[in-house]
């Protein structure tokens, strides 16, 4: 048994992190908030590096990797707050023309919402699933949302990739909180020297690392019950992590200028996707008496 990242998997993660830091760092994030819209050039670059075609067989022009690598890629996307219907386009690779290479932006009904409907070229899934979708004023400035009347059936792989994005947010939120706690001084010392702040940060790490074990394991087994566990714990690690990160930032965390609120809002958006907490908990309960 060797349940650790391989050298190739670490390299894949590092390459993506490098690309996203370069192409969607702090300044780009702020610019995207000020001028909403999907960056098609970045979308094609993601296509070029194989983000969407990652699991497509090499014979079909894909990268030929598996769910563990996809999970690592989506974790990086989650960390960077990368906008766009990433999960839907990834799942459409090899099915919807242009999806694999990032030429097409593909969205889908997930839960009772459709992300990026107006900007998407294709709505993947059951015909007419997004018909009559009603726009709402999205809480997340980087995720336009439409509501639909009937929820789409949850897809376990989509739910796992969402869990991976949430894991990225949980990890990033912990890092941001720690950075702030080490530098912000009050009462003559960094606030991170106070146990009340330390313990918030420690619990953020605990939730993120427990979720990481669940997400990576589910990527290896692809078992629906493992995926439900991963999603449940990753949703919680992201939502509570981003919230605690905001708390550690104090008044600055409550401002539009700080990026902390963007992590929390995105975590809320993802938590509404299919396979959320009620569904996962019921599935995990049924497993106990199966």
């Amino acid at each position, binding site marked *: 048994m060797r349940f650790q990242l391989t050298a190739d998997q670490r390299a894949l993660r590092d390459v993506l992190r490098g690309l996203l830091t370069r192409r969607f760092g702090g300044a780009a994030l702020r610019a995207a908030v000020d001028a909403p819209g999907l960056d098609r050039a970045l979308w094609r670059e993601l296509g070029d590096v194989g983000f969407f075609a990652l699991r497509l067989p090499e014979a079909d022009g894909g990268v030929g990797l598996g769910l563990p690598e996809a999970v690592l890629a989506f974790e990086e996307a989650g960390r960077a707050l990368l906008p766009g219907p990433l999960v839907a386009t990834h799942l459409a690779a090899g099915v919807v023309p242009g999806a694999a290479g990032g030429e097409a932006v593909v969205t889908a009904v997930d839960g009772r919402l459709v992300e990026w409907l107006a900007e998407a070229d294709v709505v993947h899934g059951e015909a007419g699933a997004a018909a009559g979708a009603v726009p709402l004023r999205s809480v997340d400035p980087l995720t336009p949302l439409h509501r639909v009347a009937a929820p789409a059936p949850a897809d376990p792989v989509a739910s796992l990739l969402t869990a991976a994005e949430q894991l990225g947010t949980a990890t990033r939120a912990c890092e941001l909180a720690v950075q702030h706690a080490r530098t912000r001084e009050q009462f003559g010392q960094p606030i991170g020297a106070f146990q009340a702040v330390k313990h918030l940060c420690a619990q953020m790490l605990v939730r993120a690392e427990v979720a990481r074990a669940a997400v990576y394991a589910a990527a290896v087994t692809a078992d629906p019950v493992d995926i439900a566990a991963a999603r*449940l714990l990753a949703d919680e690690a992201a939502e509570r992590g981003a919230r605690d990160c905001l708390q550690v930032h104090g008044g600055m965390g409550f401002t539009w200028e700080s990026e902390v609120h963007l992590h929390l809002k995105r975590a809320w958006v993802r938590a509404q996707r299919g396979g959320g907490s009620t569904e996962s908990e019921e599935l995990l309960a049924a497993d106990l008496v199966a």
Partner: protein
Amino acid sequence: MDLAYTPEEEEFRARLREWLAKVLPTLPPKPSPDDWPARRSYDLGWQRMLHDAGYAGLHWPVDAGGQGATPTQHLIYLEETENAGAPYVGAGFVGLLHAGPTIAAEGSAEQRARWLPPILRGEEVWCQGFSEPDAGSDLAALRTRARRDGDAYVVSGSKIWTSHAEVADWCELLVRTDPSAQKHRGITWLALPMDAPGVTVRPLRTLAGSAEFAEVFLDDVRVPVANRVGDENDGWRVTMVTLSFERGTAFVGEVVACRRVLGELARTARRNGRWDDPALRRRLGRLNAEFRALWRLTQWNVSEAETGGGVPGVGGSVFKLSYSHARQELYDAAADVLGPESLDLDRPWVLDRLSSLSYTIAAGTSQIQRNIVAERILGLPKGR
């Protein structure tokens, strides 16, 4: 990333499983929890069976008489013995998991030859004299005094939370040999014979009503200098060395057991009608997620120990914080399933609920663990 076991690991599992199926039916009945001498002989009897079958000191180095098994084999051993309902390490705990590995790492050739074989053969029991009434979380503040007198140390003071003290032959004892040194520097590690004159053991009753541990009073007890492991005043380092034996396997059996209890809870809830309550179902479903994740985190930590040469990484404190909380949640959920019967000490899980309360306290409180995570892993500054 891979969760599959190698053919060699599967073969190890198969052989162990076969052996367990053969020997477990031959075990005598379990002794009463209050009968310490009977518990001692039951636990040592099991250790002798392990020894005769070549499973004693599985995770110990070969040159210390162990089997030199990999962390993954150790994980498999703990998983299989728990699943088969094999006896717990019990009275052998301190000898096999702390004192023995400490002697193996830091003891002289004579000390290793004297103390290690009887631990592996199930002949001698060790207990641990670390904590004191005024040295709990702040262990290095311990005050039990040892002064040199010829070829012996004369030891006075008291120890607390000492499990198996009533039936132990030896105690791994931390004493202060230099009161003027900085607190981590003046400590020495001694092997105390529990039958030495001046040693008094007083059982301590836990909130569960049982005498699970004891206070040990030391009144001018003479301990030969030959019983010192490591140098004088180097006992803190000697003790901490053993932490490097931690390979992420500390709670393997318990996580396996908690997952079994969770399944039993769900089936009980189905029988008594509580299952119709969606809040209870979801509560148990969430616990299923947590214990599945804790099992995966165990596999992750064990794999890390295997690749990283046995040095524990981020895993230990993170795991303990999450596990100790989840275990308490599990038995609170059991009370939710049982309703009024959760107040009946004769019902299953009720005593477990009480004993689960120690998990966020023993071996480093959750508050201390959070400090460790924050300072050593996240790099936050120490408070003034």
